[in-house]
């Protein structure tokens, strides 16, 4: 099936000359959860803003469900929901009114029953008559999510949804995300919390300096770029790595009582070979552990390479 969002050679240069996007190509599949990772100023928000219609692109093309976001904006924007990064709200509006406003703005007829369902799901029902300025930051974030859900979008952009929110809200939010995923909604989220992406995303994209460095199925990415380490605590210190083991690239630490072996995450059988060769060489160890690099390590390595 054709991707639900198709981005081709997208560029954006702001009036001050800053190149926020330098030719991004990205296909987003229907019903997937895509996490976009990248440091501050990488271009994540600009990318989202162009797809949603908030920023004009300088070049390239974005198709949403086959429709151009500039020419057929009425179609594309009615499919897209956006939860922005900043807590931007009309301080003097009540929760109920602001959510109802979002629904109407997207051309949906009023539906109090549906809005009540969303507010209850996000634990906002008791606050429905409160003004926005009376709410805490976490509550405002919930309202922004409710506003985006109010018009039942098929594609939902969450721009740093968990920045500065407590555990309860995160849990509530991931519950909502799960429900949306089950209903076939495509979700694109940007985040700094890499463990979050690791946990919920199907695919991961990494952006830095206005370029998309990679987009990969999360598990494939972990396998492909993930490194594993075998750490062996030696029973007796040794002076050097025995020549019989030289081809393995073992590293001996400063205290000469620990050997570290680096290997690819998908070559798990390598450990057995290393261990049996060590026994042959007469090196005994008192403990061993393995460690897998996280998405965070992968991310740091990727972004670091380019920087």
């Amino acid at each position, binding site marked *: 099936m054709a991707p639900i969002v198709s981005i081709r050679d997208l560029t954006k240069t702001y009036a001050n000359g800053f190149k926020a996007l330098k030719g991004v190509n990205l296909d987003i599949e229907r019903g997937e959860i895509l996490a976009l990772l990248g440091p501050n100023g990488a271009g994540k928000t600009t990318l989202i803003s162009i797809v949603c*219609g908030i920023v004009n692109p300088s070049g390239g093309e974005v198709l949403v469900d086959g429709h151009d976001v500039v020419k057929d904006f009425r179609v594309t924007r009615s499919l897209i929901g956006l939860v922005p990064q900043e807590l931007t709200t009309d301080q003097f509006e009540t929760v109920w009114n602001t959510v109802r406003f979002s629904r109407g703005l997207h051309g949906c007829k009023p539906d109090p029953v549906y809005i009540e369902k969303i507010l209850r799901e996000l634990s906002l029902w008791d606050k429905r008559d409160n003004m926005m300025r009376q709410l805490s930051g976490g509550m405002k974030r919930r309202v922004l999510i409710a506003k985006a859900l109010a018009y039942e979008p098929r594609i939902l952009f969450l721009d740093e949804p968990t920045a500065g929110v407590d555990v309860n809200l995160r849990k509530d939010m991931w519950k909502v995300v799960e429900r949306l995923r089950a209903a076939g909604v495509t979700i694109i989220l940007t985040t700094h919390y890499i463990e979050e992406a690791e946990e919920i995303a199907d695919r991961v994209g990494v952006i830095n300096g206005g370029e998309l460095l990679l987009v990969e199925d999360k598990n494939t990415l972990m396998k492909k770029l993930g490194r594993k380490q075998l750490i062996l605590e030696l029973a007796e210190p040794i002076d050097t790595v025995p020549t019989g083991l030289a081809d393995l690239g073992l590293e001996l630490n400063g205290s000469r009582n620990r050997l570290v072996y680096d290997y690819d995450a998908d070559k798990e059988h390598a450990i057995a070979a290393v261990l049996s060769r060590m026994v042959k060489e007469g090196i005994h160890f008192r403990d061993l552990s393995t460690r897998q690099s996280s998405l965070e390590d992968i991310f740091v390595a990727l972004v670091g390479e380019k920087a």
Partner: protein
Amino acid sequence: MNFEAIKVIYSAEMARTRRTLLQSVVSPVISTSLYFIVFGTAIGSRIDDIGGVSYGAFITPGLIMLTLLTQCISNGSFGIYFPKFTGTIYEVLSAPIALTEILIGYVGAAATKGLIVGTIILATATFFVDISIAHPFMMILFFVLTAVTFSLFGFMIGVWARDFEQLNLIPMLVVPPLTFLGGSFYSIDMLPPFWQTVSHFNPVLYLVSGFRWSFFQIADVNPMVSLVMVSGFLAVCLATLAWMFRTGYKLKN
């Protein structure tokens, strides 16, 4: 056309007026009543009739226009500047709506507010002076055209303004001189010839003159010329806004 969007924008804007009733409605009515007391009754009683109309009645259309202009510019500019300032504009920009819906919603509400205030002032004026309306249809036409045009003009200022100072710059510095020198309080016949010519470059002259003509059938310029000028200014505002939205001027860049 996204009618639901127009409905929610319009009602949200009108709800803001209800929340700020004192500032939006009561305050302009009080200040205009003061003009009536000072210029209409106190000083006006010592001024001769102009074109057969008592001075108090003569200045009424001008005073209504003065308030209508100020109110519509301020409502129109604030309506769009406020979401820009708070950042909630993201929602309007990412909604499936075009300039048409945005304008009908925001500018429609701004003009409605201006018209409500203008009507209240007209009603208040009847307590101070005798008012008769010679051409009610033309009066309503001038009234509505002016409200819409200057709400559009205000909307443009709201899109353009970078901060609150810029937002207030034109309403505070440009509009009062134009209205005061546009014949709100006098007929331009009273001016030396040079200043009469200068006055013809002032758009407000045409509004006040046309509006006054619909009441008393006395005018500084031909009422049809007034109508053409107001419509022309409306067209200029619409064209400028269409350009602003097409290019994303100050909104999408």
